[in-house]
């Protein structure tokens, strides 16, 4: 344990980086989920495309998606750069963005299904009642449909966000210098790999536990007007 003390600031920085990846990816997850659900509900070609998106990103290993994004992005960017300037060197996507986007696309595929189900899960009587009260379609969507869909979606969206938090560990594989990197570096200096990787595990456990507590609070808040 004593070996840890010299590395606490590095671990703190790595943990901060993990949080940043998570927050950026969570924002994209919501966007992908909403767009995906809208596409699935719209019918036609868009619905089928969104269906393929969901199937592919839910059935492929997260690591593979990340590798595809990172190395694929590099090949594409390099090709584009050489179109502009034939002498251009190798260009790659910053691992932060390749990683955040890749794990957000995966969580977004799960969120697509969650949001679609939640949108359809709002009781039809609610919509009818709103229409009977003379609410405009946009007002029905904004004040009746979305708040209730949000309540239905929260528990399973929460699970996907916890999954997303754990997926941030994968970003180390494509070279982002976060806590996994810190642990490797600290191991090579101190020769105590178990201590260092256990520290990473403890950091993640703290993050996922805090996130579950926050999600439980959000669920209570979404249900606060309901009699229990």
């Amino acid at each position, binding site marked *: 344990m004593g070996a840890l003390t010299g590395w606490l600031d590095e671990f703190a920085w790595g943990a901060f980086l993990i949080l940043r990846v998570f927050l950026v990816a969570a924002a994209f997850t919501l966007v992908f989920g909403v767009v995906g659900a809208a596409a699935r509900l719209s019918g036609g070609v868009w619905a089928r495309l969104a269906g393929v998106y969901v*199937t*592919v990103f*839910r*059935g*492929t*290993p*997260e*690591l*593979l*998606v990340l*590798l*595809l994004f990172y*190395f*694929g992005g*590099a*090949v*594409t960017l390099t*090709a584009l750069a050489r179109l502009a300037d034939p002498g251009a060197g190798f260009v790659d996507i910053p691992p932060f963005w390749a990683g955040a986007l890749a794990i957000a696309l995966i969580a977004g595929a799960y969120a697509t299904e969650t949001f679609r189900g939640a949108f359809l899960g709002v009781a039809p009587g609610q919509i009818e009642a709103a229409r009977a009260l003379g609410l405009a379609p946009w007002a029905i969507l904004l004040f009746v449909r979305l708040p209730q869909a949000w309540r239905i979606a929260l528990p399973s969206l929460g699970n996907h966000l916890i999954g997303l938090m*754990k*997926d*941030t*560990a*994968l970003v*180390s*594989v494509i070279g982002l210098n976060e806590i*996994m990197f810190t*642990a*490797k570096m600290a*191991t090579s200096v101190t*020769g*105590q*790999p*178990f*201590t*260092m*990787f*256990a520290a*990473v*595990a403890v950091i*993640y*456990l703290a993050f*996922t*536990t805090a996130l579950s507590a926050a999600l439980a609070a959000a669920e209570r808040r979404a249900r606060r007007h309901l009699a229990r």
Partner: protein
Amino acid sequence: MGFDLAIVAESLPRLAEGLALTLALIAASLAGGALIAGPATWALLRPSRWLRSPARAYVWAFRGTPALVQLFVIYYGLAQFEWLRETSAWAVLREPFWCCVLAFSLNSGAYTAEILRGAIAGVSDEQAEAARALGLSRGRIFRLVVWPQALRLALPPYGNEVVGMIKTSALASTVTLAEITGVAETIAAETFAPYEVFLSAAIIYLALAWAAERAVAAAEHRRSWPQ
């Protein structure tokens, strides 16, 4: 930059060689997970805090941390302990394959225990009560009444766990194993064709996930309530 189907055609047979290792990892880890889940579920359902708390801590720790971190704790971490390196277990624990199986089994065991706990709790109490009224012993109530119904409830979430394990097995490539993802990384480095190679690998994983979903759906169908 185009999409070179010749590279796909060349990669697929090599990726298929990695398939055997992927399947071995999945099978061994799911089996290991089931072995751990049995006693863990039993402990989760005990009234005694001394049995329940450690089981809860295990489920919490392994569901709350990334599988990659669990794998690294075992693969890189265990070497820290001199005494462990002197035991005969070290011959097994220094093999990346067995490190993966151990890490993935512990991971799967936590999820499976939680699935089984939920399923057993989901069987209505009246079923056990009725069986008790018929004079069945506690062991037979569990074996003949509660367990078959719990199994039915557990199948859909267990299907998700199997698909999850297929995806988790890809992490083995980070500890040098040449399973599908590991082979794909090697080919991608040789050919500089990441799209062709990684998409080919993705197709194999999708086929595996599809097959697993079909198998679980078939098992569910066999155990569905008589209509």
